[in-house]
């Protein structure tokens, strides 16, 4: 366990009294559980006693002291889900994964947990897999969902997914289209912009599909770098006043054909974006 990683996290969050849960959350996000060494390191870094940290870590269900699998499956067994057959769903998942609630499969793929209510009682029985909600579950759906989760639910199917559609964007200053038909990403012309970071300056293409995060670029841009974005035609910097809601970096505005503005975060790796179609969408 790299104690430097823990000290970076502690430094980032700050060791004030209220910061403990945030620190534990970050550690949990990083390792998927709270390793004993990490808790000892946190105690050392923040000057708090180990029992205080251990008490908080064992108090909240969100924290786990045992390693968790790559995929987290939560089965709701609240009252509404219970009467609609939640326990049967849980049993079926337990049977297919070969584990009981609260356990992790031996290949570290799945962790199964039962929760008491997800607040979506009208949709019961509810199963949550990696943050995706599956409502009105039936036993016959279990296998399909587990297979999907194994592949990865976050991978969107570009051909069939309704949430993915191409955007035609242009520069806010010269109104020249930013689409580049020569460079195709996801089967559509990509959006070509010029980026600069450090002393590097080069082209950068991103998928024009809304919901896809595929990119290609002249230089490898390290994650977390905030870049300056320019129009390749009029060389004006694409910059607005808005800040990213996810990370606070400046947003890059582009005009959407048909009316509206799309803004993307200028921090590499941040998926913060904002699509404002103005009145056009409702017409």
């Amino acid at each position, binding site marked *: 366990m790299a104690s430097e990683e823990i000290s970076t996290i502690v430094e980032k969050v700050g060791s004030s009294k209220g910061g403990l849960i945030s620190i534990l959350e970050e550690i949990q996000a990083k390792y998927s559980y709270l390793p004993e060494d990490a808790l000892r390191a946190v105690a050392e870094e923040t000057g708090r*006693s180990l*029992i205080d940290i251990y008490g908080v870590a064992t108090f909240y269900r969100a924290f786990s002291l045992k390693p968790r699998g790559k995929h987290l499956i939560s089965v709701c067994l609240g009252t509404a889900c219970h009467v609609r057959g939640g326990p049967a769903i849980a049993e079926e998942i337990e049977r297919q994964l070969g584990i009981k609630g609260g356990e992790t499969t031996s290949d570290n793929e799945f962790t199964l947990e039962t929760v008491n209510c997800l607040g979506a009682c009208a949709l019961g029985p509810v199963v949550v897999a990696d943050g995706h909600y599956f409502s009105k579950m039936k036993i016959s759906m279990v296998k399909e969902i587990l297979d999907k989760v194994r592949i990865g639910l976050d991978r969107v199917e570009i051909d069939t997914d309704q949430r993915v559609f191409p955007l035609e964007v242009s520069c806010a200053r010269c109104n020249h289209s930013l689409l580049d038909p020569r460079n195709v990403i996801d089967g559509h012309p990509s959006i070509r912009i010029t980026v600069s970071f450090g002393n590097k300056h080069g082209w950068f293409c991103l998928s024009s599909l809304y919901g896809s995060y595929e990119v290609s670029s002249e230089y490898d841009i390290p994650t977390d770098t905030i870049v300056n974005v320019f129009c390749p035609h009029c060389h004006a910097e694409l910059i607005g006043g808005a800040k990213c809601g996810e990370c606070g970096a400046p947003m890059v505005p582009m005009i959407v054909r048909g009316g509206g503005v799309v803004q993307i975060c200028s921090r590499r790796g941040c998926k913060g974006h904002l699509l404002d179609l103005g009145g056009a969408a409702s017409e």
Partner: protein
Amino acid sequence: MVTLYINGLKVSVEKGTTLLEAAQFLGFPIPTLCHMEGLSPYGACRLCVVEIGEGDRAKLVTSCTYPVEEGLKVRTASNRVVRARKMVLELLLASCPQSKIIQDLAAAHDIRQQRFRQEYEDCILCGLCVRMCEEQMMAKAIGFRGRGQNRSIGTPFDMNSDVCRQCGGCMYVCPACSLRCTYTEPEKAICGGCANLSPPCLEKEEFDDMMCYMQPCVACEIKKN
């Protein structure tokens, strides 16, 4: 100085004292379990309930955590208070029937039996040991873990704590466990004192007719491992 009425008696006490301190200073007995001079009040055992206010607005509060107020009317032994205390004691008996301290308190309150499902815990989660460890011994070796039904007191990861000096203060103040010893699992033991004693039966071979009434027997348990 704050003037208040305890059981109808007009008294003046210093600002900042608790109802419990005021009442005990004036000689009104209030039973307590989780209270100890020198430790911060916690209000966990609920044995020290008193009734404050009048008429419809009368309510029960824990006297150990309630600071005195100007003109407050306190009753330390009204029917309601006594009933509540008896109930609390019955619940305590239901969880820790083997505690001598709880048994004595129950007997003093004329309780002959309790109505609840009998359990045999060795902890009432009063937190005395936790406060002792933190406030008097400055160690913070033990604390509360988990929540709800799974709440328990112990060291982190159930392992010998680095900061524990094995002073035994936690066991000294405990009203329930009298001696919470885990001599069969030395790595979890809080004091380990008993493991160092040599019970007479260790030399049993020399005394053929010796009989041992210890249940469980320390030496036998150690030998088993």
